[in-house]
């Protein structure tokens, strides 16, 4: 078997061990927050609505970890990936962290600047910035995990940001368009995640009476 075959096997092994659909559910939950926050922001403001939804995100994450531990891992088993993959994940994680920090600064600046009239949040500048951020973040994720589907999610989110902004700008939506389009994308990602999870469970039944090796 060639080096290429071994690399393909490594990718397949990593995907088998990690791509059970549950992380898609978490991504869907995060995207759904983008849909819900604008709806809550009228009464609670953006900060207030984020304060409510972040604990929801944390609870979702803990539930997913628990399902992985009690349902997925007993069926799939576990793997400790090789040093090359660990290095790739670490580098991508650092890049993502720096990128998120940068995006947060930009977002805060625009949010605060918009409130004091310093930043003009009309037009497509803001949605375009969100699109680029989402695209880069998800592309990094796809590279780190060798799961190309994540790059597709990035494209969906990028298109959604621009579409939502356009709907808002041209008064084609009663709200700013984001709740509908982010909601649709969240639903797509959620359905894909659940389908993958079900497929993973079906193809990996619980081991019957394993022999001690």
């Amino acid at each position, binding site marked *: 078997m060639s080096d290429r075959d071994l690399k393909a096997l490594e990718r397949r*092994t990593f995907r088998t061990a990690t791509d059970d659909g549950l992380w898609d559910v978490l991504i869907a939950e995060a995207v759904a927050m983008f849909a819900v926050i604008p709806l809550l922001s009228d009464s609670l403001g953006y900060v207030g609505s984020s304060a409510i939804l972040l604990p929801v995100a944390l609870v979702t994450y803990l539930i997913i970890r628990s399902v992985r531990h009690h349902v997925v891992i007993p069926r799939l088993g576990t793997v400790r990936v090789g*040093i090359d993959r660990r290095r790739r994940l670490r580098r991508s994680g650092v890049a993502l962290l720096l990128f998120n920090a940068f995006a947060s600064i930009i977002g805060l600046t625009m949010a605060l600047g918009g409130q004091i009239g310093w930043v003009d949040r009309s037009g497509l500048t803001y949605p375009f910035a969100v699109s680029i951020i989402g695209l880069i973040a998800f592309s990094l994720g796809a590279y780190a995990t060798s799961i190309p589907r994540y790059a597709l999610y990035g494209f969906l989110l990028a298109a959604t940001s621009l579409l939502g902004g356009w709907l808002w700008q041209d008064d084609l939506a009663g709200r700013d368009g984001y709740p509908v389009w982010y909601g649709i994308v969240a639903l797509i990602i959620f359905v894909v995640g659940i389908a993958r999870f079900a497929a993973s469970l079906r193809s990996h039944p619980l081991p019957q009476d394993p022999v*001690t090796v």
Partner: protein
Amino acid sequence: MSINRDTDPLSGIDPVIHAPARLKLMTQLYVVDSADATFLVNETGLTWGNLATHVRKLEEHGYVAIDKGFRGRKPRTVISLTDRGRSAFQAYRSSMQAALNHLPE
């Protein structure tokens, strides 16, 4: 036709690794740091009994290390290639490549 063992490319192939089940195991373990028995059973398609037999054989030759522990209350066995196992696998790949290169057209 007499076989010259010094030039016969097939003589360099490690018979421990060459068995199909053990080759599957070695290949799978080569691309990761370690894997537990459940994962190996799923990925190689071996039965639990086969896995146990072949892993023990590989351990006898110093190619794998077996770490037995518990996950909660359930026993869990983690298997990894030793440095000797990794070297042996790389040597096996080279031997196979040389053998295939010597095949007549």
